[in-house]
Each structure stands twice: as C-alpha cells, then as structure tokens.
C-alpha cells in the first residue's frame, strides 16, 4: 500500500488495494482484523491498480490516480460504483500519474506527482535518474475528460526525481512532497522533503526543504503527512522502516 488517508469529517480512513482492484474504507477507530465499512470494487469502477488515493473531505470525493488518468468517486461510494468523473492525459504530449496525489479544496486544485510525456512538454530537460515521477502536475479540481495540467513544476532546480506521497496544506496553499530520488538504490543521494506553492510553475526550487542526510536522520522518505495541531510533518522512511516527525512551523 502506497497511500493511506484520514478524513476527520467522517472519522474514516481509506486505503487502496491494487491486487484486488479495490478502495477500502475503515472506521477511524478500526483495530485488529476489522472488516472495512465500504469497498469500492467491480466492473463499473474500472479500477485497475488503485495503489494510491486522496480524499477531499470538503467536496466528499475520493481521487484515485492510475497511469494516464485520475478516477473520482463519491467518498461514500460502496460496491460496484461507476466513477463520478475521470480526467485523463491527451494521447499525444500528455502526462502520466505516478502515485502521489493531493487535493486543495480551498484553491480548487489537485496536484499529482507525475511525468510529462512528449518532447514538447519535456522542453529539453530530462532527469538524471530518468523521467519518472520528476514533476508536480497541477490540475483544476473539477477537471474531466482529456486535460493538460494548469501548471507544471519540473526542472533541474527542483531536484525532483521519484516524488512519492504528497500533501497540501490548504491554509497556505503549500504542496509538501517526499522525494526519494531512486527507489532502486538502497540509499540514494538527493532525497528530501520539500515545500512548493500551488502557484509555483516551471523550474523552481522548493521554498523550504529538509534533506535526507545523517544530521536529519532521514534516508529515503516515501510517505508524508501533516499534523497541523502540532505544526509537524510526519515522514515514513522506507530505508529505515521508520516514522520521523519534524517540527515545520513555516507552513502552518
């Protein structure tokens, strides 16, 4: 599982199960071998590899990125339910979703970790680690059908390669990312957790970042969550099999 999301409004959390092509909803207080309270699964769902997801508690929607598309369900969907809408990449010079996804219900954008496709979009830049999860793609939250991102954050100054889980702090319009550079390397260089603005575009550095290095105790950040109550950023590090919590008042 590469995503888990908590929804305080409904006191539920959500996970994807790509092996059974399902999205599972659990009670917030679930414990032990407890069954999900809802399962989205079946032919009408068109789900293929629901590995990651995002919940929009304001508009009551679940977003599931899959390859060249994002499938959107009502948050209360259960069983063999068709999506509310789907937005997807154009066939030519489009984009590919890479798992990381976050919704800003205030500024009405959805942000994907992804890859741009086609020479036109690449504009002469290729990541030294290969073009895979090297960009943040910003879309209108209500996008439907074939769409291009409104903005793309990508380039050598971003240091982005293999962006994984992302979160949005709507209060400031901050996109917070975990970036692990190269999953196939045990301890890759250049990993960090970083912050961009939803209004950033192009080849820009993160506004703030904490690098993966011995003094920060972080090696390969994969998951990320925001704790606004304590102004903290929580990081799941897959090389350390550990959870690290950083004080990060700048974004709260």
């Amino acid at each position, binding site marked *: 599982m590469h995503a888990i999301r908590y929804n305080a409004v409904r*006191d539920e959390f959500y*996970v994807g199960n790509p092996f059974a092509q399902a999205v599972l909803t659990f009670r917030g207080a679930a414990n032990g071998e407890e069954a999900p309270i809802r399962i989205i699964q079946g032919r009408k769902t068109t789900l293929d590899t629901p590995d990651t997801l995002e919940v929009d508690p304001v*508009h009551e929607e679940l977003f599931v990125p899959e390859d060249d598309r994002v499938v959107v369900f009502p948050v209360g969907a259960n069983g063999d339910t068709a999506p509310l809408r789907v937005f997807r990449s154009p066939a030519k010079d489009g984009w590919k979703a890479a798992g990381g996804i976050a919704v800003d219900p205030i500024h009405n954008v959805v942000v994907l970790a992804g890859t741009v496709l086609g020479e036109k979009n690449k504009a002469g830049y290729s990541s030294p680690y290969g073009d895979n999860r090297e960009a943040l793609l910003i879309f209108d939250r209500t996008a439907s059908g074939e769409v291009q991102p409104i903005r793309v954050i990508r380039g050598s100054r971003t240091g982005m390669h293999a962006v994984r889980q992302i979160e949005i702090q709507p209060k*400031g319009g901050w996109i917070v990312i975990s970036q692990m550079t190269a999953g196939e390397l045990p301890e890759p260089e250049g990993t960090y957790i970083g912050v961009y603005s939803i209004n950033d575009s192009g080849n820009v550095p993160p506004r703030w970042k904490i690098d993966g290095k011995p003094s920060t105790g972080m090696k390969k950040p994969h998951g990320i*969550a925001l704790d606004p109550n304590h102004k903290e950023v929580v990081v799941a590090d897959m090389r*350390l099999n550990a959870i690290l919590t950083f004080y990060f008042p700048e974004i709260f």
Partner: protein
Amino acid sequence: MRRTVGAVFLLFAVAFSVVYSGRGLAAESSQSRATGGPRLVSVEPLEMCEAFPVAAQAPLRGELAQAGKTLERAPLRTIRDSFPTYSAVAVDVANNEIVLQDENLFQIMVYDRMANTPPTASLTEPKRVISGHETKVEFNCGLYIDPKTGDIYSVNNDTLDTLSVFSRNAKGNVHPDRTLHTPHGTYGIAVNEETQELFLTIQHENEVVVHRKTAQGEEKPVRVLQGNHVGLADPHGIGLDTKNQLMFVANYGNAHDKNAPGSGRFVPPSINVYPLKANGDTPPLRVISGPHTQLNWPAHVYVDQQHGEVFVANDGESSILVFRVTDNGDVAPTRVLKGAETQIKNPTGIFVDMVHDELVVANMGNHSATVYPRAAAGDTPPMRTIRSGPLGKAALQIGNPGSVAYDTKRDAIITPN
C-alpha cells in the same frame, strides 16, 4: 499575506479544524449526496490565507517565503525498531547453521543451529551477517540454501527487484556472487534440485516463474504459470513435492484477472496445488481453502516429502498449520501449532529439518526464530529460541512504510505496511 478572518461561514471543512455533526451509515449509503458539490459542515472562526483563483500565477501572490531555503533540522521524534525482524528461515543442515532473513534492518544473519538465547540475554550474536549497500539486500523476504554448497539465495520483495546469491561464508557488505533481475513483488522461492530449476512467486502478476537454477542477469524464465484459469491470488510461499511431482502455492486471496480493470475480487486464502511442471494458464489440481483450514495470510510453506505433509506459516492467526499433501477443499489441518507457550507471533518463515526432525519458525512479531520437534502440535513451547531482541519485546512491524496519515481526532499516526 495572512489575515485573520473572523466568524467566516465556510462552505468547506478543513480536516484539522472541523466541527461536524456525524451522520449514520444509512445516510452515507445514499450516494446521490456525494456529487462533488460543497456543503455546510463547519461554522467557526479560522485564520486563513487569501483565496486565489486556480489560474493565478506566482506574481499575483508575491514572494511567500524565501525561495530555496534548506533547513538544518533534526527530527523531534523517531519511531523505529532497532532490532532485527525475521521474515524467512532456512537451515544449512550440512554445516549446522540456521540462516535468517532480517527484513527490518535488511540483513542476512547466520547462527549456529543449536544457538539458544537465554531468557536473561537480550540477544544472541550471529556467526556472520551479510548487510550493506553492496549486497543488494532490501525488503528481503525469501530464502533458500543450496543443500550441497551452502550458497544463500536471497529474494527481495520491493525496490531492488533482485535475487542475490552469496557463497556460504560471505559476510559484511559484499557483492553477491551473482544476481538475477526478478519481477517486482517477488516473494516465495523453492528449488527443484533434481532438475536444477528455481521457482519464484510474483505477487503483483499473480504468477509463478521458473528459471534455471543458475540463471543470472536479465535471463528470462523457462516457464511462467499465469492466466485467468490458474487461480493465483496474491501468491506468497511456494513448496515443491518432487516425489509426487506437485507444486504448492499459498495465496492471500487478493484476486484480479490479467489486463481486466474492474475484475478485482476477494477470494478466501488458499493453498493451490499444481503439477510440478505446470506452465501457462493451467488450473490447479486441488485447492485447500475454506473456514476449516484456518488459513489467514498464509506466507511461506514447506513440503515434507518424507511424511507427505505441507507446513504453512499462517501469519494472520499466529499459527503453524500442517496439511497432508493429498488434502483438498475445506479440510481441517492435521496439526495446528499455536498458543502463548509456542511464542509464535506473526510467523512468515518456516523450514522442516528432516535430518534432525525439527521445525524452525521465523516470527516477524517478536524478534525470534523458534525451534520445535517436527511433529509438535497444540500449545507446545519451543525447544530452542534465537532472539535478536529482549525477551517479550514486540516487534514494531513497520515494514516498507509507503505512506503515512495523521489522525487528528485521536492525535495518532497511521501507517500501512
């Protein structure tokens, strides 16, 4: 840029500042309510930034922060298990050693077969450890020991997608003697020494791939068992019965058809039995599955050909199940090893030592490998225990944490494995 907005009527709920009157499940089941439209869920004062239109460009907002600032900041807190957690086990009978996969710290640990950690000791020191960047060992979940050479075959489940083979005496941060690029999500391993073939289960593809035992690099498999009639559903452990020419594969029960979006389904966990040389879209000969089997997250399996039994490390029930190789359908196990005295906790690895008539279990839940008489049943305590952490210290079992969430209501962190 920030301003205080008092008594704002908000048509949204920010997850961390919400006042919400919950609804019953009956209301939730009405999907017509969730159409993406905003609704009133919270009325309260809130400090927030100015809202900008979707298409607003950076200059509209001005500089919100100093660009490109790298923060020198140590974590406030770290949750990490500093002790090894054993995911798989094999016994080098010829050299009297027990080899264990540590999937927490990414190590292969070699112990004397007779090692037994005293209750007062924190741990037993291994004889040798293979660990470090050069080893290509990460999320190491499967293990096979060549009975003649003592070579160690180590399977990675994630990230590195590599089978690493080390010589028996390898230790430290060493290159494998050879590597084989494996599909993403490889878990189980078994070898047919008679035909010199290597079998691997692949979770993500619902398949079993068969290679030459000496395959390396990008070499392709000689056979692939895969297809909608095969019935593999998130396969894990694999065991071979060369005497009866059978292959046993444990399945968690997460199923979908190949290249068929929306075909996903949950099926009961099972042990599927195939012809040893099964290839392509071959259905199972038999399926051991159902409530009487007690199967729940069946991980590694081991076939005892001499006694005609299949041993299952039954992770979800913290038990070891033993079936007959001829079993079929919803059958009760011949024996169940389970209970507080066994010290079995989330077992994933298993090995039957036919020479010494012993059963060795790798427990992911408590930093231990436990050894029993082969035919042990019920709540039998282990004869010996190899511990890598203090007695009674439960393992955190944070394994491959791909994501994390913060539960604002309970002030809790949630992470999947």
